[in-house]
């Protein structure tokens, strides 16, 4: 079915790709679902957290999943969407020590954390210790409106940055499903472009 939609060469590239997703909140849960729908080969997903009521304003979970670990909850949801993808789940807190090991089979890692310091830690770790890996990070997706201010920028060979770089939660912006999904859509779209066009 997906071969018919995408053509065989695109389908093969997607099917043989392994993508890492660090953080399974508003960004990570949306990115994972987009990639699962188009038939990505394998997702390596990591988050230590459980689903909370406050997550449901933007994250792809259900009321009955409150209290369940996000890795388990998202894996269940992804399997309902596309049971033919492989999922490697890590319900752990990501650190500079375990990031290179957990994502060692990925050529692309999506930075999907919530806190600025965590984003910094992941991007620095990947750029410094994982030589061939491309990191797709997000900075600035709070609030609503201003859809076109969310941009995808290629900062260097190995860093793509998405967002408006300014509307952070520190500045009082709240997070809402539509704008978070726009940023996650940019992220997933950049990943697909890298997989198909190299």
């Amino acid at each position: 079915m997906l071969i018919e939609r995408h053509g065989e060469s695109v389908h093969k590239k997607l099917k043989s790709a392994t993508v890492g997703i660090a953080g399974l909140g508003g960004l990570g849960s949306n990115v994972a679902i987009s990639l699962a729908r188009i038939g990505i080969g394998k997702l390596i997903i990591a988050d230590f957290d459980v689903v909370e009521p406050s997550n449901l304003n933007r994250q792809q979970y259900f009321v009955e999943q409150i209290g369940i670990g996000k890795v388990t909850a998202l894996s269940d949801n992804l399997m309902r969407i596309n049971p033919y993808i492989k999922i490697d789940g890590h319900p752990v807190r990501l650190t500079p020590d375990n990031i290179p090991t957990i994502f060692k089979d990925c050529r692309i890692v999506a930075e999907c954390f919530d806190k600025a310091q965590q984003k910094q830690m992941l991007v620095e770790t990947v750029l410094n210790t994982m030589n061939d890996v491309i990191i797709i990070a997000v900075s600035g997706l709070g609030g609503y409106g201003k859809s076109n201010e969310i941009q995808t920028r290629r900062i260097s060979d190995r860093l793509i940055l998405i967002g408006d770089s300014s509307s952070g939660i520190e500045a009082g912006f709240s997070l809402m499903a539509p704008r978070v999904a726009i940023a996650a859509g940019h992220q997933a779209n950049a990943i697909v472009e890298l997989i198909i066009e190299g």
Partner: protein
Amino acid sequence: MAILKINGEDKIFENSVPSTLKNLLESLKVDEATVVAEVNGQIIPRGNFQNTILRDGHKIELIRFVGGG
């Protein structure tokens, strides 16, 4: 007069450039915990900001993260 090229733009300092990357971030009032920095094409781990010496003409890329995800 001294110059640092920061994110592609010349920033001019009257006397000399800030002595270290850490001092530069302080002068820009940027929280170093939210910045990934590159000096002359080299990623500088956050732990080394303090002992990364800056000189006139250095090229610096600062990627700033704000929260939300």
